């Protein structure tokens, strides 16, 4: 019996060592972010709340400033680190965008801790790779919530500040439930508070929070906007439909659902918030295996059958919802928001060049727009 126990113990140690190494590698893998020619300043989010300094919650903030003064926009990627279209969209702008007027501020990994956490029970791949002309660019696949290694324990129920609305205990680690945050709160509340400070101190006009949502979720393929942003969102929705031939309807931000960026940023600052959703079949429950391929091409036999039974909220066929299409939509909607806003308020205009739109990304693939980190000066590369 003792021999059997020793053998089992050795097997257990081997299993734990192999898997432990893989999980350690995931948490410590560094994604190089290349600061493109348009990047003028790079700060840490802790600049706006020093208590974040040195923690996993701290993250890079990239500034792309134009020669001419104008308005300011804040773009957030990886609010949910298992919706990577947000990160990829932000990186395309950071590496390529050049601002003529106004300022574009980008936080590509808003929930940095979540990007270094897997999702136990959900069988995600640890990494995904985007093909480029110079090889494959590798990314960590993260979680919706911050890692318990960085914020633990969870409360038995999360009570939103300051509205006192009861939310799921998991939402204490979800930065799209902790807005507007508080300076001495939980780490994720500090992250959103620091972002609110950035919005207030920099006098940001627009905030664009980029996400992905399930095809079976009614709030998908859309722009979520509160009352103050609704007109602009509607204009953008109609324009992209007419000019670029893709749907992106407007969803009103529910006033009684607290903690979300599209609700609290508008209520607690002068900025107009928008939350962009593109369909990400990988997150749907009735799908086949959760593979890197499903994440990238969004093709699934179960969803196809459900689409035929009219049980999805987006059009869906054999082509799926590829990553290029999702990123392309986000880029076009973002650019259109800046264009329409600049037209309405010329003194606060934001003009940016060199950022591809929907058709270009679908044609070339998102990887086409990533710069090879080995070809640029090391001082242009940032690791979170």
């Amino acid at each position, binding site marked *: 019996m003792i021999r059997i126990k020793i053998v089992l113990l050795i097997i257990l140690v081997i*299993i*734990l060592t*192999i*898997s*432990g190494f*893989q*999980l350690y590698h995931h948490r410590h893998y560094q994604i190089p972010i290349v600061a493109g020619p348009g990047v003028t300043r790079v700060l840490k989010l802790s600049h706006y709340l020093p208590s974040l300094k040195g923690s996993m919650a701290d993250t890079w903030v990239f500034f792309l400033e134009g020669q001419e003064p104008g308005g300011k926009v804040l773009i957030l990627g990886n609010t949910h680190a298992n919706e990577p279209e947000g990160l990829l969209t932000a990186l395309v702008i950071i590496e390529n965008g050049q601002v003529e007027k106004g300022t574009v501020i980008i936080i590509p990994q808003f929930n940095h801790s979540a990007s270094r956490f*897997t999702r*136990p*029970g*959900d*069988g995600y*791949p*640890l990494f995904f790779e985007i093909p480029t002309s110079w090889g494959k660019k590798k990314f960590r696949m993260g979680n919706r919530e911050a890692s318990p290694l960085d914020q*633990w*324990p*969870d*409360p*038995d*129920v999360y*009570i939103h*500040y*300051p509205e*006192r*609305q*009861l*939310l*799921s*205990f*998991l*939402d*204490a680690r*979800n930065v799209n439930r902790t807005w507007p945050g*508080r300076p001495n709160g*939980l780490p994720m509340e500090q992250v959103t508070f620091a972002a609110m400070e950035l919005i207030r101190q920099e006098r940001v006009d627009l905030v664009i929070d980029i996400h992905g949502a*399930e095809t*079976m*979720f*009614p*709030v998908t393929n859309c722009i979520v906007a509160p009352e103050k942003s609704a007109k602009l969102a509607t204009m953008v929705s109609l324009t992209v439909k007419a000019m670029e031939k893709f749907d992106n309807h407007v969803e009103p931000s*529910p006033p*009684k*659902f*607290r903690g979300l960026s599209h609700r609290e940023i508008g209520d607690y600052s002068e900025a107009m918030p928008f939350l962009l959703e593109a369909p990400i079949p990988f997150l*749907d*429950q*009735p*799908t*086949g*295996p*959760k*593979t890197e391929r499903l994440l990238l091409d969004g093709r*699934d*036999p*179960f969803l196809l*059958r*459900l689409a035929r*039974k009219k*049980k999805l*909220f987006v059009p869906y066929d054999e082509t799926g919802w590829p990553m290029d299409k999702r990123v392309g939509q986000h880029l076009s909607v973002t650019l259109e928001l800046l264009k329409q806003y600049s037209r309405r308020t010329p003194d606060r205009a934001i003009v940016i060049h060199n950022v591809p739109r929907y058709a270009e990304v679908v044609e070339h693939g998102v990887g086409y727009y990533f710069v090879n980190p080995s070809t640029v000066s090391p001082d242009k590369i940032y690791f979170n």
Partner: protein
Amino acid sequence: MISQIVVILIVMIVAYLIGQWRHFSVELSLFFAALFGAIAGAFFSTPHWSEIFRHLVEGSFTYLDIILVFSTATIFMTILRESGGIDYIVHSSMKALSKIRPLALLVLMIIVLIPGALTGAGSVSLLVVGAPVAAALRHLGISRPRTAAILFILAGLSAAAPPVNIWAMVLCAGTAIPYVGFELPLGLPVILLGTFTIFTLGWKREKNGPDEVTLAKVEAFLGMSWWRVVLPFIVLFGLILAYRLWPFKMPVLGLPLEFFLVSIIAWLTSPKKLPFFPISRETMARLLPLIATMVVIGMLQQIMTATGVRGLLSYLVISIPIIVLFILLAVIIPVSEGILTYGAAAILGIPLIWYLDSLGYHATVAISGLSLLWPLGDGLPPTALIGRLSVMVSNFEGSYWSFLRRTWLPWIVITIVGVLMVVFSHKLSFLVRWSVG
């Protein structure tokens, strides 16, 4: 791809059945199902061979928090029992109330409902107050299997009761529906169904007189007093309530630390000297099967997702025609809970709520209705989490099925109420409006 997933599902079922046939424990059989499912999946690179160990280990952490709550809560209750506090509660409360039977039953029901309602876990109700309430029910002349049946149904209802309902919270988080307006849609049926359960199962006195054995034992612990028993509970509920009342001033302690703190208080206030660490070690040994279940269920859930089996099951549920679906809810929801525990809410519940929402059903009331059905599954194998705990705390030594059979009447009534709440969710939406004010 679909045929490949069906093959993997068959491999998992066969592995589980072989484990059972060879008389392995449920936990080992489930582990074999997960392991062989992963190996079968690896032939199709879902997951890749190199990822099998990582998926098993990562999945084993899915319910780590729940395991910590179980463990610390049980250590607390064991210390309280060893100190003689439980016997003291039974003796004193029954002395005061046993002559007014309906009142005694209602008080016992409320005692069981409170811990689960505050924490969202029926197991906490059983671990904290299960043993003394079981003794009190026996004192009222209720047999052990009926006592276990009452505790099982009430613990399940306590988990569904507001303010904290984990199934509803998981569904709300996954469907972006605010966790508000659940007070009446959950609270009203829980109180009514709880009263129905304790009166139907506990009204009849099955033995001739009160069970004096438990009461006699109290004499051995002369140093015990009310304040020694009540103080740890006051601290526990005080900590939970303090966070509700002053959420932005109180530090987040988490349930495991709160239970650990009150364990220390119970140990310090015990009238006799207790060996803290040996008691903790013995408690963990007793809990090992439950912990193993939660660990293996996490592994199984991870492998089912990585191989596509979870998606197949989810697809089948939402493909069912709506009328048939309503009828099958009575089976699908409890069975899914029995297999996956809280994971069932994510796997089946989220697409189900989206589907019902898209058809015009009221999501909050529908979630409340489903929340009444899920706890029933906690009595079903392979996990039978609450059922097994109910049997454990009531010291029932008969067969598991003889206990479960006793629950048939409240089970059917709860099922009917839960399904009707889903079907008529729109007509019951006034409960949500009244809750929100």
